[in-house]
């Protein structure tokens, strides 16, 4: 009987959605159980770090790392998973490109902590108590990890073999990855296991050849035509620069794409690509008109970098910024 593979699942700064996506593969989970022993999956079973540390280096056939790298313990886990895994998969949008937690990169970690512990309306903290990385309790010392200065995607910390994009990843691509492992026919290293075109190709809405937007609108403030391309109606949709494979799930549900599958191949900075794509569909006769139309975009940074801010080529800048409040 062929030796079973070994799989490991490491959560990081995540929401658990990726791990639920694994369960969403329904009966295919039985095939996974046949194919592999799970040597580490603390979200599902009672594993501790020592269980993963006990596996010889390279002893994990495929390691799936989900979540962004947000504290120094996550960095340790990323390196541990890399050492123990023959193949390391960045699983889900957070590991792929920082995900939603990387929206925090618009602020410093101190600004975030100040909001969380001092100013958010739901907190009462007159003494300004903050978590400490070490604390002398009366009984002994307590320690917790240190939050990093910014959120990172997995491949900014360790070498990654494959990416399963999405927030959450879709069962059909998880199954495709499992089948590739089972058959031994793995795609080239660095492959993003999803479609190869843009979401527009899978989108059921009608698109005309020309997109000519004269005004950007917020989706809930307009009666939008359910058959027509959202962008043509002036509603920001990230479809043109987003990798497909999701069958345009959000558009089918009546919402615009927000780019959770990440960019298509050969795109170095998804936000820049989206900014360029959105700018190119504006129709204006004068600079002033163009400025007015684009000035109506209320949150370009948040639209264009919703899931992938950690991977922006601009890096995490600390220039001048107006307070939002």
């Amino acid at each position, binding site marked *: 009987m062929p030796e079973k593979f070994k799989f490991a699942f490491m959560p990081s700064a995540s929401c658990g959605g990726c791990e639920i996506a694994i369960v969403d593969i329904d009966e295919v989970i039985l095939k996974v159980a046949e194919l592999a022993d799970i040597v580490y999956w603390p979200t599902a079973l009672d594993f501790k770090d020592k269980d993963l540390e006990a596996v010889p280096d390279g002893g994990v056939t495929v390691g799936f790392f989900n979540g962004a790298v947000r504290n120094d313990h996550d960095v340790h886990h990323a390196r541990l998973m890399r050492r123990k895994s023959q193949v390391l998969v960045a699983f889900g949008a957070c590991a792929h490109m920082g995900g939603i937690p990387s929206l925090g990169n618009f602020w410093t970690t101190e600004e975030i902590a100040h909001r*969380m512990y001092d100013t958010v309306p739901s907190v009462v903290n007159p003494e300004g108590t903050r978590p400490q990385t070490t604390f002398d309790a009366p009984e002994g010392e307590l320690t917790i990890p240190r939050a990093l200065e910014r959120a990172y995607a997995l491949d900014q910390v360790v070498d990654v073999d494959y990416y399963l994009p999405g927030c959450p990843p879709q069962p059909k691509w998880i199954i495709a990855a499992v089948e590739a492992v089972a058959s031994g026919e793995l795609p080239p290293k660095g492959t993003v296991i999803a479609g190869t075109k843009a979401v527009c190709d899978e989108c059921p809405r009608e698109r005309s050849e020309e997109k000519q937007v004269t005004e950007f609108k917020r989706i809930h403030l307009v009666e939008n035509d359910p058959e027509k391309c959202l962008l043509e109606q002036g509603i920001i949709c990230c479809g043109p620069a987003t990798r497909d494979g999701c069958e345009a799930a959000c558009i089918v549900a009546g919402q615009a794409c927000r780019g959770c599958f990440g960019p298509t191949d050969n795109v170095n900075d998804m936000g820049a690509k989206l900014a360029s794509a959105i700018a190119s569909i504006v129709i204006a006769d004068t600079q002033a008109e163009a400025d007015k139309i684009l000035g109506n975009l209320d949150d370009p940074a948040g639209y264009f970098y919703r899931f992938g801010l950690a991977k922006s080529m601009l890096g995490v800048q600390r220039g001048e910024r107006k307070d939002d409040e």
Partner: protein
Amino acid sequence: MKKIEIDPISRLEGHGKIAIFLDDAGDVANAYLQIPELRGFEQFCVGRPVEEVPRIVPRICGV
């Protein structure tokens, strides 16, 4: 005092760590639940269009 650490707390979403201190008699002197993570939803939703927030905050917990 002897310290027992349960790290990570398993079978749930999110990260948690428990430190249990035992006195000389082996009884629990004190136990601490620690939350070793920070993501910052409270801050990064600030300034986002209101209709986008219901698309961001489900990522607090995907379960």
